[in-house]
């Protein structure tokens, strides 16, 4: 099974690179496929995605090929005479069992991936992410740091109806925030997602998952980011008027730089509000506003 995944992954790379060459403009924005991401989980998701995609492509070639061949060969205008057979238990059993077997073969790696994703134990760092209309609050629970992040001012001005500003002139249009959060590389980070008003969904595609932020719930997920860099995402669940305008930006740095950032932020940040219950903090925030 594993070899099949890697092989399909390699075929995917070949296909993707061929497709990427097609538009002569070679503009990066003619993106076709899922990015690989930067966590072990996102790589597994990518391989699984390519595996199922190839299963679908092969099935499609067989089924659509048969339809195409029928259209070519069995047309009345070419003198085709219709046979009258209309039943075959053997064939029916065959095309019930074969897809079933393929599904089981796909379910095995999918189950493994899911078990891995749900294992949030032994984390090095815990960050509580709270969604509000329309910004995110990040609390580094064991470090005493709190950050609020909303859409950057530049994007916010440009995105107003009839602003007259060309979005292509704004750097990272709609994917830029006023306060980035900083995370350490190669550490198992546990994310607790919740919300203060309506349901949001926290999604950075490079991590390989999204998780809903729901008032009254604390959802657990984790990520081990293996590459330093800046990764961007957005709220994925409709949360009202400005749902499209609450981006997520994470900057992943070395442990030393991360510690420095924490130290610098600790002094500047206001004391963390009582966060016994997400609902309570939510209403507290509303009052503060």
């Amino acid at each position, binding site marked *: 099974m594993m070899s099949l995944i890697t092989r399909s992954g390699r075929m995917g790379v070949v296909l993707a690179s061929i497709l990427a060459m097609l538009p002569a403009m070679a503009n990066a924005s003619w993106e076709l496929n899922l990015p690989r991401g930067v966590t072990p989980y996102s790589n597994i998701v990518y391989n699984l*995605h390519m595996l199922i995609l190839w299963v679908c492509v092969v099935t499609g070639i067989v089924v659509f090929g048969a339809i195409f061949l029928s259209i070519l060969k069995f047309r009345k205008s070419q003198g085709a005479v*219709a046979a009258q057979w209309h039943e075959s238990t053997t064939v029916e059993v065959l*095309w019930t069992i074969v897809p079933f077997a393929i599904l089981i073969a796909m379910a095995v790696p999918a189950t493994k991936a899911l078990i891995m994703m749900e294992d949030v134990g032994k984390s090095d760092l815990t960050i509580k992410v709270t969604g509000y209309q329309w910004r995110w609050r990040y609390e580094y629970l064991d470090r005493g740091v709190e950050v609020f992040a909303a859409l950057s001012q530049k994007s916010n001005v440009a995105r107003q109806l009839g602003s007259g500003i060309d979005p292509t002139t704004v750097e990272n249009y709609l994917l830029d925030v006023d306060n980035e959060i900083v995370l350490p590389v190669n550490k198992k980070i546990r994310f607790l997602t919740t919300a203060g008003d309506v349901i949001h969904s926290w999604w950075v595609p490079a991590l390989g998952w*999204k*998780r809903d932020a*729901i008032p009254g719930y604390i959802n657990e997920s984790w990520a081990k980011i293996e590459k330093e860099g800046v990764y961007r995402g957005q709220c994925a669940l409709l949360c009202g*008027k400005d749902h499209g305008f609450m981006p997520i930006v994470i900057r992943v740095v070395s442990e030393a730089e991360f510690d420095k950032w924490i130290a610098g932020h600790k002094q500047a940040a206001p004391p963390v509000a009582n966060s016994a219950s997400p609902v309570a903090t939510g209403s507290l925030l509303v009052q503060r506003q």
Partner: protein
Amino acid sequence: MSEAAAHHDDHGHHYNGGISRWLTTTNHKDIGTMYLVFSLVMFFIGGAMAMIIRLELFKPGLQFVDPQLFNSMTTLHALVMIFGAVMPAWTGFANWMIPMMIGAPDMALPRLNNWSFWILPFAFTLLLSTLFMPGGGPAGGWTMLPPLVLQTGMAFPFLIFAVHFLGASSIAGAINVVATVFNLRAPGMTLMKLPLFVWTWIITAFLLIASMPVLAGAVTMLLTDKYFGTSFFSAAGGGDPVLFQHIFWFFGHPEVYILILPAFGIVSAIIPTFARKPLFGYSSMVYAAGAIAFLSFIVWAHHMFTVGMPLAGELFFMYATVLIAVPTGVKVFNWVATMWQSSMTFETPMLFAIAFVVLFTIGGFSGLMLGVTPVDFQYHDTYFVVAHFHYVLVTGAVFALMAGTYFWLPKWTGHMYDETLGKWHFWISTISVNVLFFPQHFLGLAGMPRRIPDYAVQFADWNMVSSIGGFVFGLSQFMFVIVIVKCVRGGAKATDRVWEGARGLEWTLSSPPPYHSFATPPEPATIDGGYR
């Protein structure tokens, strides 16, 4: 001309003239026509909303509508297309065709039939009037998730009551189909001889009866949460926002099969007709439809994989979901086997039916991908999902509706439609609909969330392609209207059988059929056994 049709000439038409004919009619054909016309009007209203959405998404930046209006467009587009266009269209087809297919004079409950139709215009007046209210229409998405939907202003009670009305109308229509099929079949029309359209509609009717009351309950709880101080879905009051999602999708997943099962029935009638060959595996088609309907009740939580379910729940819903691929695959393979070694011609209904098989299967593939939970954590709530459900609902359900319209239009009107125009409509629609929806797969995979009025610039190119496809697809639907209007007004006289390979009782009636379809039951010998 058949005996039944000849017999009909002894009777007069007992209907009032003018508008009161349509207000008071209990005739299955009149009501069927009203359902179909209403659905076509709604298809254009919902389509106009889609045009606004694609216009705003044509390029990055907000040019035409503010985010609030954009959100109410996506919300209402969905509600109008699901409850206003596709569901009433199926009920319209059921009204027209089921009595003619089973050898009955009319539907079993004709007054209920009149009532279930006339609820609809009022329900949509309520719903669409919210667009002109202070605060605008509902903008929380057609899934009405609390707490967001509770932030809706004046439109809120109108939304809830419109959904109540729509549910009542569907349940009444479904009860009528069940009563008709179980009581009014002609002698000799055994269950396993029923045309597949009738079979898939009975199954659909049971899905409706089982799932619509659940939706009614869920939205009633929203209503009391908003106005009567209950906290069913409010975490602050001890309730649970995720509970609503479980209840909603317990309705919502059977609902998607309500939208697609009758399409399976229509395609199973059209392909054998133009292939001049009996449908392959009739009984397995019936069992597959039953299996799909059963599975549709135990997979609802795949719409909510990201809410944070326990591992066991995620695994169960993943396995059950991908299992649906098996009976669905059986259906697709059977259609292909029907075409194999046949003698095909490619009139417009057949073109739409073949396009249905191919494009619906593509929607099925993306559905399979979405069903795999760990990968769904990436796909969920992106344009990949938007592409998926438009492939199954537009190139699936809507294409089957068009196929069925072209297929039976000569029977309904007594005239042949304009085949050249029909073929133009098919080719332009099929090409443009793929330009419209296929790039949305790429957008979703690249990371574009759904339901956003504006997007980051790396999504600009495919959005522009998609919008161009959307405009062409939208405009080309006027050709559909032209074909229908021309056909109703005149055209070459249609024969009773209309299509060379047509089988089934409806083709033994005259074209157009008599006002009361089978006033006397058809001869048992004219009943074909289980071929389609």
